[in-house]
């Protein structure tokens, strides 16, 4: 018996507060960029400053004071996380990375904030270099006061390492639990379909909702689990992995939680048609014969029939049906099944197609008999982008997986070896993921400590950088040991 509690995060999706929050973040980004190029008197400031004042007014409606906070990878207005739209993705990530870089945890705004305050604030922030570990925010506040700004002040970055590690351990535990619940539920549902028993989808929905909660909080733990490929009965893990990858793409796209659930369920059932493919074919150690291919290629169509059988049609079944049918139809409309009427596969189908290809290629038991290393898979997929795969969605996916995909073994300039655990959401810093260290600089094995490669040292330079990437399988490194 496991527990779930409502997500601790309150996410503001729509409404005037959410809108003002998004404009605020967006315009801070524009303001900072403008102040890098122009003098303080330049007219280029007029628009961002006016927009910012508008956003601030919106946020001051409920209180005379509020804070824009950066915690982990996310931004919050007070304690409400700001959900971003795909349009705001870049500003969102830029603002959060600047706050981390400057070691500032929050910007507090108190009514009234003048146009002049905002401009001066931008210049102060741009030129600010954190002086070291001791209260950088106080240093910044002194600068603000010197320039006569009293309506804005900075708060400390939530003290990293220790708290974060505990937190991370908890989150990983939660992620692990949810992941295996998902595998279990998937196995249960698939079995009941195979044996033509009544199928209950409530459990599926609940477990996918649980995954959505985790993904909206922090996706890395789950993505790490998708990198472990050594499970028995990989079929069910594959379903769950594709579902997690798809929902992660959906999360980046800014889909709301109900839409993410729908996507997750559709992705989980993408191969449902395979329950009707004889197990001897699916588990065949050698390549398929032409006849066997014909059978395997029927699984999308069988998927449609399987979903019809269990549920008939409703809103939930509809998206699952589309994905089950179309996930092997490519962006250029080739692939299978061959349809009478050609049309671009559904948005969800295209997301699942990418997730499915990646997980299939990187695991040994589905389709490709010899697994590709994650990076090899990703570069192959890059070649297929725009042909087989939707190029825009692929970009999002590549951002999630990163230049160094999760599970990649990397050698750092400190001569430590590490496993890539989480990609850097800032597209400018894709080469700086989070890494679990597995050896120290002398090559001795160490218990997995997580480090962030975007962390800078005293002198401002990066503490660690990747110099080489390797395939962990070649050196008998068991990902489960670190990611489970």
């Amino acid at each position: 018996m496991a527990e779930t509690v409502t997500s601790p995060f309150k996410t503001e999706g729509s409404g005037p507060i959410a809108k003002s929050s998004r404009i605020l973040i967006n315009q801070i980004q524009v303001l900072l960029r403008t102040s890098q190029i122009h003098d303080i008197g330049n007219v280029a400031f007029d628009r961002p400053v006016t927009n910012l004042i508008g956003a601030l007014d919106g946020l001051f409606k409920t209180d005379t004071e509020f804070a824009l906070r950066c915690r982990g990878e996310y931004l919050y207005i007070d304690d409400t996380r700001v959900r971003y739209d795909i349009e705001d993705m870049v500003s969102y990530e830029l603002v959060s990375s600047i706050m981390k870089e400057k070691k500032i945890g929050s910007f507090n705004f108190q009514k009234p904030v003048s146009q002049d305050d905002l401009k001066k604030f931008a210049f102060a922030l741009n030129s600010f270099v954190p002086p070291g570990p001791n209260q950088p925010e106080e240093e910044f506040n002194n600068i603000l006061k010197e320039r006569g700004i009293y309506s804005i002040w900075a708060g400390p970055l939530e003290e990293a390492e220790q708290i974060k590690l505990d937190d991370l351990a908890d989150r990983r535990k939660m992620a692990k639990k949810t992941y295996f619940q998902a595998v279990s539920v998937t196995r249960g549902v698939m079995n009941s379909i195979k044996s033509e028993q009544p199928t209950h989808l409530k459990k599926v929905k609940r477990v996918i909702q649980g995954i959505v909660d985790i993904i909206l909080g922090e996706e890395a733990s789950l993505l790490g689990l998708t990198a472990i490929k050594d499970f028995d009965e990989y079929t069910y893990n594959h379903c769950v992995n594709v579902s997690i990858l798809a929902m992660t793409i959906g999360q980046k796209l800014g889909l709301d939680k109900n839409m993410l659930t729908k996507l997750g369920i559709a992705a989980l059932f993408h191969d449902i048609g395979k329950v009707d493919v004889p197990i001897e074919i699916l588990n065949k150690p050698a390549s398929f014969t032409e006849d066997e291919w014909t059978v395997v290629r029927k699984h999308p169509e069988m998927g449609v029939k399987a979903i019809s059988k269990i549920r008939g049609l409703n809103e939930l079944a509809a998206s699952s049906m589309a994905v089950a049918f179309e996930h092997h139809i490519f962006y250029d409309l080739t692939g299978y099944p061959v349809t009478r009427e050609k049309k671009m596969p559904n948005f969800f189908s295209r997301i699942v197609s990418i997730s499915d290809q990646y997980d299939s290629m990187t695991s040994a038991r589905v389709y490709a008999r010899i697994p590709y290393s994650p990076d090899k898979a990703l570069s192959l997929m890059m070649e297929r982008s725009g042909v087989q795969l939707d190029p825009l969605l692929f970009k999002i996916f590549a951002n999630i997986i990163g230049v160094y995909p999760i599970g990649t073994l990397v050698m750092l300039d400190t001569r430590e070896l590490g496993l890539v655990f989480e990609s850097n959401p800032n597209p400018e810093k894709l080469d700086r993921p989070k890494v679990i260290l597995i050896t120290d600089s002398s090559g001795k094995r160490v218990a997995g400590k997580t480090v962030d490669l975007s962390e800078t040292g005293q002198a401002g330079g990066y503490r660690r950088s990747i110099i080489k990437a390797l395939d962990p399988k070649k050196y008998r490194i068991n990902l489960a040991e670190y990611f489970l």
Partner: protein
Amino acid sequence: MEELFQKIPDQPLKQPEEETLVPESELKAVRELLQSLLKTKRAFEMYPANNPILAKFQDDICRRFDDFFGDADKLPLLIRQQEILYKGQSVYKNTEKDENLALLFYKDGLRELTFLEGFSHEELMDFIEVIRAKPDLLSENWDDDIVTLLWEKDFAHLRYYVVEEFSDGEALSEEEVQRLLSGESSDDLSEAYKDADEGEAKEIFSPLESISMGFKGVFSLGEEEVKTLKDEIEGLTDEKFLDEAIYCLFESLFMEKGSQDFELVAGSLESALSYLVHTGGFRTASNILKRFRELSGGGEGLSQHEAERLKTAITRAGSESRAKIIAEVLNSGREINIDDFREYLGHLDRASIIPLSNLMGEVQDIKYRKALIDALVSLGKDNIEVLAAGLKSGQWYIVRNVAAILGRIGDKKALEYLKQAVKHPEPKVRREVVRALGMVGGPKAGEILLEVLDDTDPQIRMAALRYLPQAQNYSVLDVLVEVITRPDFEERALSEKRVFLEVLAEIGQEKVMPFMIKLLKKKNFLFGNSKNEEMRVSAAYGLGNIRHKDSLRALESVSSHAKKGSALYEAVSYSVHKLAGPDGVGQEA
């Protein structure tokens, strides 16, 4: 689920289970609030959404929540199987299985519910929506429970605690964990160091090179690209997904041509159709019907048997049982696009005529009834006898509408059926039948209209009269004259007498002119015989319909004697004016 019933949360949750001192008034408020909640839930299950009784319950529960939060900042409830606790004290107890608020929450795994200050009326209504029983209509498609629904609603001022039941056990067995870990990583990673140093390692995507190019092009989206994605995301509606699913089903249907699974897919499309009707999705539903029609029409390589299968589906789309569902949907107050509904009806076959006719008696909104009538007009054209069966309905309302539809179709075949309805006990029906007879027209319609001249309702008699000229049946003249010369005819109202004589003149023209003139000139021998006077007035109006100089002359001669301002004077002047006017006989003369 059984197993779950026996389990009691093994650890205390976030509130004390032991009894604490809580003022009785506070407990009473919570007890009454929960009772009110249960009553409101029940009311929502019993009454349609627009029922005024609901508002009363709504007001009560809202007021109780407001009152409670006047003194407290949260309302924490601990859920047990048959009991609800507040601050350790029982505030709800029920050992029954039905209508049990505690069990309702408990069975889905809810163990704690905390309403927070700020819980708005809107949230409260959403909450009731979550806990109310779902309509049977959709229950077979139901994949939700209270927990999934609470999650979807994303309440800002409600916290809950759930236990999950996963009877399949923890998914990962101990052995599997052991196995996963037993392939423990090699301690010796010198090989990896060697490869890295000797350049064996790969530089994925040549990251350094990518950095120098800037990641933007490779990994970031341009403004246009972002817009494209945003548009796609905005297009992700339920309706769109349903369309996509229908597309997949039709593609599958073609793939299954000649296979026994054709039946399975066709069945799925039919159940999709049924679901869509349930949910008011008439647009997508009509698309399915449209394609069924195209495919069953041949030319798509379907076997005879397969084509028949699809025709059956069309027939069932307009069946009695489907019509019942349509009535429920149309009466539910849900927003239905009228054009989509019309299109759906337009695809049905003749088998739907009787169900749709009956539907007219059940649907409340006039715009849907109009759509039904239009559909029946077009379906009934080639199926008069089927449609006319509706005239035998026990509901006068349906009979009236069927009569109207037959009238609009205007097919003479309808007359024999209308003839049977002309004596219907409901005057509204008889009036509609008369109108229908008039619209069909022709000598036979005239004959039937004559039967109405003895109707008990003068309005209906007059209506029948007014349609008589269109029947172009001269044999009616004798009947009219016969009625007019009956001794009791004078007793009828002036308005009816006037119509009789106007119609008689209009049909009979010169043939009846002497008779009319005679009536006009018939003097009052008895002083004050107003009935006779009325006959003269009516004749005067009638003569205005006979375009003949003798008619005009007769009128003029009376005109000079008639008392100015009298009814006769008015009538004569009116007709003289009509006949002597620019279009009258005056010009000919």
